[in-house]
């Protein structure tokens, strides 16, 4: 049982090696093998979470080298929760990917799954590690594999990926510079160790510069508003299965890294008392929410619309983390889970529409309710959660964020949250209206040739993960008080009221 934390990483990593070898001879086994690897990983993550909730944080010493000299995997309820979210979302996408990958990437199946599972390894590693430099390496593993995956989209995707490579590299390099400054001042790379030394250096300018670099790195990686330029193009042009995986996970894991930097490497006292960045960051978050929602309103391509909604959601989480009170922190960390699940749900729906109809512009949703009732049913749940309608989890994260904004008097943030919910409602009602009331399409397809391919719902291998994610949204909402009291309350950093 004490090897559980490393198993989360070992399962996908070794599956990646096996896939490289096996995929050469038998491309057909790639997808089942990926699913098995991710199943192992997510079961270990769930067991780790149970262990952490019952008996407190786990510190795993890699190779038996004690921290701060060796690399430490440090799991508390916050990252156990994110680990569970990442591994289970990846598992759902791996099941879902079978048909779209066959259709879109026929000859490259084995390469796709190898990169896919390496990306998941990178993301899980970022979440689990307690070593600042190890985090950089894993950040780059995740980034490099996601560049390659997005470039599989061909054509326009090449230029979008190139911009992503440049900005992603700048982000990772800023992070590395920040770690360098901290290494000079503290002489250690272990996050908890850094956290114990930083308070004694609170007046140092180098520590402040390090924080600035670390934050810039994170913000570039998570596409906070002025740095979001690379995201919509990259995620829109990526193949279906890739955007389903990358869109919910990459940005959320970066938010987690930001929480780690703010509250483990630095402290509540330092972030909110020694420096006075809060008004600036809150302004960025508010602008991100408003601009993300407005740009989303202007899109005809629904996949592109969703990518702008991600930009808005990043504003929610950054704002919540910087509110500087317990409700804001709860809202931000709960929203990491909630947003991961609802983004994957909506991207899977759009993927199914693309799979069936070739594109996902708003007019492609015409008549979708009569031809694809199951897919659209899940879409309704995802949309309700995005808008923030009660039993779904989107409501509860907004509730905590709003009460946090009210407590600390950041009314602009609260207003931005409400406005963005309103805009989300308009966006999704527009789609539902088109899908429900408009006739299928103007040209009736020949009833004998294409009837089955055009008028059937998506295949079960796509519906199953879609509904699993949609029901998880409901379950997370119904059990939200348990999640908050048992998982998030124990990890709220001391000093947050």
């Amino acid at each position, binding site marked *: 049982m004490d090897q559980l934390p490393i198993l989360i990483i070992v399962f996908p990593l070794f599956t990646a090696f096996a896939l490289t070898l096996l995929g050469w001879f038998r491309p057909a086994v790639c997808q089942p093998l990926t699913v098995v690897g991710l199943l192992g990983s997510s079961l270990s993550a769930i067991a780790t979470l149970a262990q952490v909730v019952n008996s407190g944080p786990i510190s795993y010493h890699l190779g038996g080298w004690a921290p701060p000299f060796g690399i430490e995997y440090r799991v508390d309820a916050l990252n156990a929760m994110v680990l569970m979210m990442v591994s289970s979302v990846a598992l759902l996408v791996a099941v879902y990917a079978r048909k779209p990958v066959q259709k879109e990437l026929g000859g490259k199946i084995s390469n796709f799954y190898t990169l896919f599972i390496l990306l998941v390894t990178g993301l899980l590693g970022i979440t689990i590690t307690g070593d600042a*430099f190890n985090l950089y*390496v894993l950040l*780059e593993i995740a980034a*490099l594999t996601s*560049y*390659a995956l997005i470039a599989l989209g061909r054509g326009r995707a090449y230029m979008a990926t*190139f911009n992503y490579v440049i900005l992603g*590299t700048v982000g990772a*390099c800023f992070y590395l510079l920040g770690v360098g400054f901290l290494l000079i001042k503290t002489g250690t790379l272990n996050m908890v160790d850094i956290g114990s030394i930083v308070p004694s250096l609170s007046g140092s300018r180098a520590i402040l510069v390090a924080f600035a670099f670390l934050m810039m790195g994170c913000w570039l990686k998570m596409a906070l508003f002025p740095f979001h330029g690379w995201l919509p193009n990259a995620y829109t042009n990526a193949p279906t299965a890739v955007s389903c995986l990358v869109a919910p996970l990459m940005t959320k894991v970066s938010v987690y890294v930001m929480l780690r930097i703010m509250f483990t490497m630095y402290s509540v006292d330092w972030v909110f008392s020694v420096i006075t960045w809060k008004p600036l960051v809150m302004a960025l978050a508010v602008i991100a929410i408003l601009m993300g929602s407005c740009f989303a309103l202007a899109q005809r391509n629904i996949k592109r619309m969703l990518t702008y909604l991600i930009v808005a959601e990043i504003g929610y989480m950054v704002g919540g983390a910087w509110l500087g009170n317990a409700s804001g922190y709860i809202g931000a960390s709960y929203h990491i889970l909630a947003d991961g699940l609802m983004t994957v749900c909506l991207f899977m729906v759009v993927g199914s529409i693309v799979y069936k109809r070739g594109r996902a512009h708003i007019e492609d949703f015409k008549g979708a309710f009569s031809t694809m009732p199951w897919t659209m049913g899940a879409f309704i749940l995802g949309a309700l959660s995005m808008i923030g309608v009660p039993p779904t989890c989107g409501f509860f994260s907004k509730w905590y964020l709003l009460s946090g904004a009210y407590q600390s008097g950041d009314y602009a943030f609260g207003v931005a949250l409400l406005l963005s919910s309103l805009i989300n409602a308009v966006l999704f009602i527009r789609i539902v209206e088109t899908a429900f009331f408009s006739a299928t399409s103007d040209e009736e397809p020949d009833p004998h040739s294409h009837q089955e391919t055009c008028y059937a719902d998506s295949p079960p291998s796509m519906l199953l993960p879609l509904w699993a994610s949609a029901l998880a949204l409901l379950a997370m909402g119904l059990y939200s008080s348990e999640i908050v009291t048992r998982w998030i309350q124990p990890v709220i950093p001391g000093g947050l009221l």
Partner: protein
Amino acid sequence: MAWVEVHYNYLLVIILLMTGLWAMIGKNNLIKKCIGMCIFQNAIIMFYISMGAKKGATIPILKHVPGAHGHGPESYISDPTIYANPLTQILMLTAIVVGVATLGMALTLVQKIYREYGTCEEDEILNCMSEEQDHELPLQDELKA
């Protein structure tokens, strides 16, 4: 002036970082952007290496005590002041690998872009892309009509 004498390595790193960043953001040619990225990454590698360097120190490989022949701990000089800091060098070994992989990825993409559009200049590529879009839209309208 005394500050410059002590901290000239940081000045050099700042100049390199700014050169790289400017090339990445300001240049129109994609290959030049890649070169900028490479300069940027290498500036950080130099930053790390220079922070671990010491005056008069040698490479971090254990030295024999003069005259000693055994292999036990007593026959090596364990005084840390005579060795450069090995930690930063180890870290940068990994960072170099990451840098090579990123550069390889970027250059592959530039090659693909060149095959697609026949140019490496960003403004020309963007022109091509917007023309493509103009072509696409009327086509859809024709289909509907």
